[in-house]
Every structure is written in structure tokens, then in C-alpha cells.
């Protein structure tokens, strides 16, 4: 049993700045009890304190993250303050948001063995644990692989396996689906079902709710560091969809998305035409092959498909970042070669940290301009609601603000084509809509946006055209302006759920 008794926590002022825990993320007077064997879903907007609560449960607070902590958390009757992180690690298994940063080893088998090894189990017992976990969670096919060759979904499964190898009674997961596509989420859901069937206590903080609909026994709704709602699964499902939307939560059922209105804004009269795109890594078979595909000039186009379907490769080729990619892009008879595309397109990367270089937001915008014009730069910033932050260091901003800085510098660069790579992974309803709003704004200015994404709601809110890729080829492409197109899109995402 987990029990929180009047827990309050706040991070120090100069704490980590991953957006969620600058001044936000603090907890106020949390009291709750989680029964053994229950599956608890923590939901709420970004910054509501979900992540902080998970850190309290797995002992990272107070043993790793510093801050002011009052009240007590009890695991099986013991105060977490009196337990060491090492002791807690035997009771609680943790899975984190970012699949790239939670592996200590470079191969999967060592990663599964890592926990038991740390606990000093004899070699034979460790091997047995690894075998057992691989069998129970169906990870056999992933054994003995390099973690650098795994997809995001596979990494999260290994992360769960690695937690499970210690055989804890409690699992704490912090937004594990953030970087997964719909197919990987369905797969991940099955793994959670297996853990639940073993009678484990599971606490999961999550933005995407639909895949947990049938799993959660209890839903805790958090806002401003407090638990504002404590529902049974039945109660939560019987809430009207509008109520959940008011609470800032993502839909529980993808069918609820049918009602989203077509994004307004003008559609262009001409097309971008991609011709003869092909790409292969050195000594590897072709991973991308496109004879010809068109998408509208002006307006937003979504690129969808499974992980590994070639979506990211296509966007990189489009931006001219892949030297090995042949092919051209045309618009109204003008043909752009690879080198010209480097100046034609601007990519807003999935990890925006990679593209922010300077010491202030304003400099960042000026760097993108052909000729530096401070007045114009400030106008662009005002448009993106960034003017108050112009002197701040870009890396010190929250995730959403950084993304807007990247978009603002794309606008300042005056390039007609802006590519977004997974802009909404890990965002809550409010921030996702904010990004959709940004995309709508840039398309209204007569630019074209191309969005690589797994987020059906986001697509419906800002895109007018869909390119569906599979196995490096174009499966289909269709307009979303008619209802049939929109149904086709939802069908794709619902089928994925299996």
C-alpha cells in the first residue's frame, strides 16, 4: 500500500528547467492512499504536479531532486525518508518519459540484468530473472540487441522489462507513451495488461488517455498541485466528453474527435511536387522510394505512418539534409535541387534544443534573418507571444516556448516551407492546441507547413491534406477537406489500436 500524508513539495528556484518544474510542479497538501493491486491513472495538464507525484513515489524525492518537502510518503508502512533509494528500488520500479535517456547499458540483455546485478543477485539468479521477464513480457525478440537500433516503442518495452526484472510490487510510470506512435502504444498497452494481471500496483501519469481506458481502476485528476478529482473507472468514463475537455484532458475515445471543425484559412491554388525521392544508408537497402507525390502549396499537410515507415527520412530529404537523397521538389515550374532546398525549407525539430544556438531569444531570431532587422524581429516575436522573453536565454524557456522560438526563427527566415517533426509528442491538450494554432497562423500567412505526427487530434485541428507512408513508399494521399478524408484518417488511427 502507498500512502501520502499531507505532502507538500516545491522545487528550488533554480531547479531543473524542463518546463514542468520551474515554478510549476509543486505539490500542495496531497493526501491519498493507493491500494495494492490497483491501477491508478494520474491525469491533468502539464505542470499540474503529476511528474512530481511520481517522483515522490519512487523515492527520487527526497533522495535525488532537491526542494522543500513536508508531510510523508509511506511505502508498505515505511516512510520514504527513512528508506534509501537503494531500498526503495527493490519495492518500486520506474519507467520514464524519454526512451533515450533511461538506459544505462548499450545492449538490451545487460539492461534487463542491470537491476538484479545492482542488487547483487548471484549470476545464475540474474540470468533466470532476465529469462523470466523476457518470457512474461514477450521481450524475447529484443534480447541481445543494441539499444541504439531499437525504436522508441521497443525502448519503452525494455525499460518496463528492466524495471520488472527487479520484481517490484509497485510500478510508477511517468508519461511513458510520449514518444510512441499509435501502433507502439497498442503494443505497450498489452504489456501493461500483463503487469496488471500479475497483481502489481501500477501508477501511471499520462496525457494520452484512450489507451488506458479499460486498464485504469481509478483516476486521479490533478490541477495546480492538488488532487481535484478522484474517480473510479466507471465514474470517469461516464463524465461527459465536454467536461473532460474543460479539465484540459485529451479524449478518452478517438471517436470523440469526429466533431472537430475543418481548420479555416485559404488553400493555395498550386501544388508542391516531390519527384523521384529515394534514399538508402550506405550498403543498406532503400528506405525511401517515392516516384511522385503532390501536396498543396499553402496550408498544412500531415505525414502519417508507422514508426520506421520513412516519415522522418522523407522530411529530412525534403529539407535537403540528406546528401544521399536524389530527387527534386517543384512548385509552379520552379525546380529545387537538394542544396536549394536547404534554403527553401526550415525544420522545427522534435528536440528543439538542437536548433537553438544563441544567448537570447532576440538574437536567435536575428540569426535567421538575411539582414538583421531588430524591429522586424520583435514583430515576429510579438506574433508568437514571445516578446516578454526576448532577452531570456532560449534554453532557459519551457518546452512550448522553445518550440515557438524555433517557429519564430523559421518565420523570420522567410522560407515558404516549414517542416515540423513530431511537434506535439508529450503535450497536453492545451499545449497541443497552441501548436495547432501556431501552424494555422503560419499557413494563413501563405506558407506551407508539413507535419510529421502521430497525433490524430492535432492533424484534424490544423491539416488539410494527408500523406500516408508505409515501408518507405507512399501508401495513399488524400485531402481532409471532405468528411470522407477525415473518416479515413480516424479509421487509420483506430485500426492501429487493434
Amino acid at each position, binding site marked *: 500500500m502507498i500512502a501520502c500524508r499531507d505532502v507538500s513539495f516545491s522545487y528550488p528556484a533554480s*531547479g531543473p528547467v524542463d518546463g514542468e518544474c520551474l515554478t510549476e510542479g509543486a505539490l500542495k497538501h496531497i493526501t491519498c492512499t493507493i491500494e495494492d493491486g490497483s491501477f491508478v491513472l494520474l491525469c491533468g495538464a502539464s505542470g499540474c504536479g503529476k511528474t512530481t507525484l511520481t517522483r515522490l513515489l519512487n523515492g527520487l524525492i527526497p533522495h535525488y531532486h*532537491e526542494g522543500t518537502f513536508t508531510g510523508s510518503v509511506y511505502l508498505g508502512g515505511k516512510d520514504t525518508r527513512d528508506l534509501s533509494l537503494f531500498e526503495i528500488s527493490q519495492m518500486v520500479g520506474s519507467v520514464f518519459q524519454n526512451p533515450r535517456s533511461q538506459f544505462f547499458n548499450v545492449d538490451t540483455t545487460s539492461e534487463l540484468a542491470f537491476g538484479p546485478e545492482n542488487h547483487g543477485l548471484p549470476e545464475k539468479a540474474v540470468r533466470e530473472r532476465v529469462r523470466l521477464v523476457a518470457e512474461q513480457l514477450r521481450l524475447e525478440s529484443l534480447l541481445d540487441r543494441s539499444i541504439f537500433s531499437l525504436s522508441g516503442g521497443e525502448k519503452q518495452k525494455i525499460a518496463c522489462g528492466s524495471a520488472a526484472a527487479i520484481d517490484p510490487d509497485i510500478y510508477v510510470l511517468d508519461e511513458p507513451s510520449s514518444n510512441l506512435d499509435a501502433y507502439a502504444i497498442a503494443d505497450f498497452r498489452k504489456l501493461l495488461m500483463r503487469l496488471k494481471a500479475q497483481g502489481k500496483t501500477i501508477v501511471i501519469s499520462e496525457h494520452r488517455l484512450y489507451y488506458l481506458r479499460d486498464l485504469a481502476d481509478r483516476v486521479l485528476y490533478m490541477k495546480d498541485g492538488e488532487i481535484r478529482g478522484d474517480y473510479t473507472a466507471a465514474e470517469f468514463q461516464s463524465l461527459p466528453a465536454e467536461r473532460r475537455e474543460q479539465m484540459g484532458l485529451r479524449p478518452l475515445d478517438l471517436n470523440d474527435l469526429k466533431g472537430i471543425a475543418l481548420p479555416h484559412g485559404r488553400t493555395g491554388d498550386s501544388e508542391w511536387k516531390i519527384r523521384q525521392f529515394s534514399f538508402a544508408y550506405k550498403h543498406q537497402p532503400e528506405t525511401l522510394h517515392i516516384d511522385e507525390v503532390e501536396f498543396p502549396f499553402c496550408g498544412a499537410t500531415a505525414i502519417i505512418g508507422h514508426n520506421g515507415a520513412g516519415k522522418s527520412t522523407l522530411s529530412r530529404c525534403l529539407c535537403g539534409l540528406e546528401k544521399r537523397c536524389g530527387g527534386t521538389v517543384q512548385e509552379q515550374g520552379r525546380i529545387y535541387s537538394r542544396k536549394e532546398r536547404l534554403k527553401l525549407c526550415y525544420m522545427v525539430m522534435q528536440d528543439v534544443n538542437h536548433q537553438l544556438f544563441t544567448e537570447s531569444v532576440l538574437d536567435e531570431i536575428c540569426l535567421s534573418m538575411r539582414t538583421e532587422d531588430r524591429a522586424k524581429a520583435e514583430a515576429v516575436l510579438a506574433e508568437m507571444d514571445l516578446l516578454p522573453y526576448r532577452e531570456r*536565454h532560449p*534554453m*532557459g524557456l519551457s518546452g512550448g516556448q522553445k518550440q515557438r522560438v524555433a517557429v519564430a526563427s523559421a518565420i523570420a527566415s522567410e522560407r515558404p516551407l516549414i517542416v515540423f517533426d513530431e511537434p506535439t509528442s508529450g503535450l497536453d491538450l492545451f499545449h497541443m492546441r497552441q501548436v495547432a494554432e501556431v501552424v494555422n497562423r503560419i499557413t494563413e500567412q501563405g506558407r506551407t507547413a508539413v507535419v510529421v505526427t502521430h497525433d490524430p487530434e492535432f492533424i484534424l485541428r490544423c491539416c488539410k491534406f494527408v500523406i500516408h507512408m508505409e515501408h518507405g513508399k507512399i501508401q495513399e494521399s488524400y485531402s481532409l477537406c471532405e468528411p470522407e478524408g477525415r473518416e479515413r484518417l480516424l479509421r487509420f488511427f483506430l485500426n492501429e489500436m487493434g
Partner: protein
Amino acid sequence: MNRLQGKDLINIGIFTAIYFIVIFAAASIGFIPIFIPLISVIVPLVGGIPMMLFFSKIKKFGMLTICGLLLGVIMLLTGMGYWCIPTGLIFGLISDFMMKGCGYKNAKREVLIHGVFSMWVIGAFIPIVVTRDAYYQNLLPGYGQEYADTLMAYMPDWILPVLLAAAFVSGLVGGLIGRKLFKKHFERAGIVS
């Protein structure tokens, strides 16, 4: 608690990796033989940027010694001989003592410490110099006294101390550069705690 904890050990690994990649990229210039001595200038110069950030995370004794040892091990693995292991250990240890001496929070002293730490690169030059005499003996029978002397003039006795001094001085400059970037970026970005 003065023993190194998990977090400290992980930090050592991370920063040694960053440091090595940065200096390796910069030192690639040394693959052209004439520029080899320049390595002792370039490495400390660019290494200051990651190192000054690393220094700000150091609160316990021993982290720089381990870092120096790891650098030596990588140098051995990349075929540069084992001399960087002792030099890494020695200059790491001295730096650790100096860090302890200034209570782990003296920015000016840290620049000086970077200068000292940078001298580990001398390990990469030791094979060229220690074998000099033997090489000289070998040359004598084949080429004659005069020729061997001319050749040796290009590798004078004092080259080691000169390189060591060069490493120290450019380590100071690198430390200053690192300090500047530290204030300009890392502090303002909030990644220093």
C-alpha cells in the same frame, strides 16, 4: 558524505565522454604530422568549455583523478600508448587537491586548475621523446654522426617541458573561454545547480 555517489560517478562518465569527443574532433588536425605538437595547444584550448561546466558539478574529491584515468584508458584503446594513464592520474590528482583547496567554488582558481589538468596531454608525446635516445643510437651506424645530430635538432631535449608549458598556458586560455561561455550560456540556461 564525502564518498562519491552514483550521481557523481555518472557525471564523471558523461563529462569525460563529452570532453573526449570535443578534443578528438579538434585534435584531428594532428593527423598531419607537422601539426602534432599543436595538439598540446588545441586540446586544452577547446577542452576548457566542457571542463569548466564539469568543474561546477564537482563537489567531492577524486572526480578529476578518475576522469584523468579514463582519458588515459581511451588513449590506450585508440592506440596512443599507455603514457596518458599515469599523466592523467597525476595531473588529475593535483587538480583534485587544488579543487579541494579552494572549497569547490572559486571560479578564478578553476581556470588555473584547468591549466594544470590540461597537462595530461603530455602523455601523448612521451613515446616520441623517450625513444629519442634509442632512436639516435639506431641512426648512428646507418647515417653517421652528423646526420643523426641534424635530425635530433628537430626533436630537442627541451621539447617536453616546452609542450608541457604550452599545454598549461593554453589550458589557462581555454579555461577563460570556458568560463566566459559558462556565464554567457550555462548559467542563464539554468543547467547549473
